[in-house]
């Protein structure tokens, strides 16, 4: 038993011989060398420098799995119980590296290649050509501009959601029933919403809403004909689906408010509006900010309704970045450029959300 170090958490004594340590290191480095050698061999083979190689990268994957297993086993062999402890984390780390970090880096590589699935030559690195193309791509900038409109619409959604939450928090009849009913749109898939509402109810000839509009004197109703109207309708359908989400978060926040403070304001003679403005709203800021930020993150992924209802039209007025990338990638098999657009969008989202969180951080703490 060791007399030094972390005695509290050590259960067994480890007398690790130098030979055992050597074996462990041999396992790790041997498997790593095999993995590296096979990867190099396959890379050279794929690049056409050497004839020897495999049909696919699968053997390299097996070598990686072998190395990962050897690395884990070698922890125990070389470090005994400390090694066992690291096994609680190491497989998860390797898993994340394999399925998150590596694909991200590989995606980054692809985004700087010229890779059209129909091309005879596969992926070819093309430097910053994709970036230049993006810079000159009117469709992408148009989609980004639309995203600004879509994100701004969250503020209106927030106001409506807050109002509904206040209503459902008040002592009204059938409160529980309304809470469930108001949540129903959130339970629907946006694809279902786009077909039921966008393609059926708003259908200009047979749709009940169009009929009602005609009854009300609008001769030839068109809900997606002009750019502004189409964008508004997309916003409305998306809002209808997701306002309940904000509403339920805000409702939870309202119910968690300390009643004493609100009652104290009433005792002090505050009107309902004053109580809301001076007490409830400030206390709700952290919940509000969380709800708005999460909603914005949802909004940045907006695509399904647009793809189904307008395909980005008319003339790109409703295109979102995701729906544009979908067309670029799926319809045009333009893997390299599509990936770059997605990567740039990822960076923009990270920067935007970070800045947003920084900006609102002072409201995130409840006033003492």
């Amino acid at each position, binding site marked *: 038993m060791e007399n030094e170090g972390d005695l509290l958490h050590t259960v067994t004594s480890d007398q690790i011989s130098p030979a055992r340590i050597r074996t462990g290191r041999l396992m790790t480095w041997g498997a790593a060398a095999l993995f590296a050698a096979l990867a190099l061999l396959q890379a050279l083979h794929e690049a056409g420098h050497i004839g020897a190689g495999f049909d696919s990268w699968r053997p390299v994957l097996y070598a990686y799995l072998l190395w990962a297993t050897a690395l884990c086993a070698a922890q125990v062999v070389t470090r005994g119980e400390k090694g066992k402890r690291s096994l609680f984390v190491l497989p998860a780390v390797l898993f994340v590296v394999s399925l998150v970090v590596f694909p991200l880096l590989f995606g980054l590589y692809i985004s700087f290649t010229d890779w059209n699935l129909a091309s005879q030559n596969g992926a070819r690195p093309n430097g910053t050509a994709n970036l230049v193309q993006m810079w000159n791509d009117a469709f992408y900038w148009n989609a980004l501009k639309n995203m600004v409109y879509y994100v701004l619409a969250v503020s209106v959604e927030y106001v409506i959601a807050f109002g509904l939450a206040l209503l459902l928090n008040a002592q009204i009849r059938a409160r529980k029933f309304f809470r469930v009913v108001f949540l129903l749109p959130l339970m629907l898939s946006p694809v279902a919403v786009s077909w039921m509402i966008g393609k059926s109810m708003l259908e200009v000839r047979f749709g009940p809403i169009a009929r009602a509009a005609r009854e009300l004197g609008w001769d030839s109703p068109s809900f997606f004909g002009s750019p502004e109207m189409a964008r508004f309708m997309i916003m409305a359908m998306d809002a209808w689906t997701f306002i309940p989400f904000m509403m339920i978060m805000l409702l939870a926040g309202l119910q968690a408010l300390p009643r004493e403070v609100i009652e104290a304001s009433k005792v002090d003679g505050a009107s309902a509006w004053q109580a809301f403005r001076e007490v409830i709203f400030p206390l709700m800021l952290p919940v509000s900010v969380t709800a708005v930020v999460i909603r914005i993150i949802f909004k940045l992924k907006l695509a399904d309704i647009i793809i189904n209802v307008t395909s980005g039209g008319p003339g790109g007025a409703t295109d979102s970045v995701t729906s544009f990338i979908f067309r670029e990638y799926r319809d*045009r098999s333009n893997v390299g450029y599509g990936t770059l657009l997605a990567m740039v969008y990822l960076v923009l989202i990270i920067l935007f959300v970070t800045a947003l969180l920084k900006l609102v951080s002072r409201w995130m703490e409840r006033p003492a």
Partner: protein
Amino acid sequence: MKVDLYNYVTAVQRMSRRNMLKGTAALGAAAAMPRVALADGHANLRAEILKIPGVGAGSPTDRDWQTVGEMCLGASKANVAEGEFEGVELTFMGLNNQNLHNFLFRGFLKPWEAYTGAKINWIDLAQADYNARLQQSIATGTVDFDIIEMGAPFEGDVLGKGLASEMPDWVKDQIDMDDYVGYLQAPVGTWDGKTYRVSIDGDCHTFAYRKDYYENADFAKAWAEEGDGSAWEVPTTWSQVNAHSKFLAGKTDPLTGLEAHGFLDPLKGWGGFGFYFLEDRATGYAKHADDPAWLFDPDTMKPRVNNPAFVRAIEEVMELVNTDKAYPADQINADPGTTAFQQFLAGTGGMLTWWGDVGSNARTSDTSVVGDVIGFSTIPAGDAVYNAATGAWEEGRNEAPNMAYIGWGVYVMKTVDGDDKKKKAAWSAAAHLGGKDLSLWMSAYPSGFQPYRNSHFNYDEWEEAGYDRAFVEDYLGSNADSYNHPNAAIEPRIPGIFQYYSVAEDELAKIYAGQYGSVQEGADAIAAAWDKITDQIGRESQIKLYKAALGL
């Protein structure tokens, strides 16, 4: 035959009792027939298979498919000994949608499997997943199927990359390729002079119109006053289509009492498929009889989509966009699915170009109201054609039916080439599905496929099988005329053709929304985008493949 068409036909002729009894008697006879007798072949095999299950006797079932598959095995038996493919396993990739496809192939191939000893594994794909799955298999080098059901537009991707197995001569004899309609003959299905495709389908756009518009006395009278002096008749050129469309704007539909409209252009994209509809308007102007090419210059791959012919076609669409009430409201958001099923069949609009589905849905769809007033013809012609070689317009009527999508075929992949037994097995399976007699049954019953052989247009056989001759002649006649037209416009079978269509749809949407200064400017933007795709895929290889596809 497309499923809907079959339903339509049986609805149209409203099954007389005599016909029904004829079908039932045939079904009884077929069921009572010993299998050996069926398989031995008949002097009148074609008439016999058309009686299974009998027109109007309900949709065929798996049992019927197997029976027909077995009755049509004769041609395979002539080339393959019993049990010859024992131990061979083949993988077949195809569609698994409601229009049958793979469902049907399973039934047809079951007796073939029993006879030859081969086993077939199936990869079933939804139509929407098909292109992505195929492209990924090719790009990642993971072709995990031996036989594929594939549309001709993808031949550039597959044949151009040398991924398919060349058709042996014995297969050509077995399936009687000389019987194919004109446009399915080489170069379609061939690449660099080698043959790869077993056709199982034909596709083209035809022109559907409202007969009641042209029989309407009020319209005729108004046209005599407002029109250009011509007779009020079904238009046969695009100029007439536009003149009639402008005339109809603001009038009242005689059938529905709502607003009347003329031609229905889909102004919204449809995953690339929407471009076929601009092509309909353009082929008459752009497809010159002396030149097989009409979308690109074969020597340079320079796009022709911004030449005067296409610009004229787009301008004619814009002419209607800018005419108040020429289109229904919200037309900017109408894709081809909308124009056909929500507008034309529902009584909105007087003219349309589409695939066969419009005819077939006219009486079977719940929302269709035009079943009794619909007529068909080949798509309208241009009244001049642009000669890309001389750069000048040539006056005179120019017909060029658009063979949009060309149709499905069965292809064998190169994966079988290393193993003679497997290769013969794969080709035998493909030849069985594309057999002459089996194809007659497929064209007459729900299968997802349209007629594609000259022998399919022998109307006597249809009549004998219990179909209404007048309907078959009217409806299939417009297809037959398109298929065998000497100046049919056949799309380029080059890699990534749907990428070109998809990007064109995006730019067209901008043109239609008035975001370009002129149509020419918008068309130039399409051409620039097409050039970019060509450069990305590889201009030299595209030129080579395009020439190979054209048979140059």
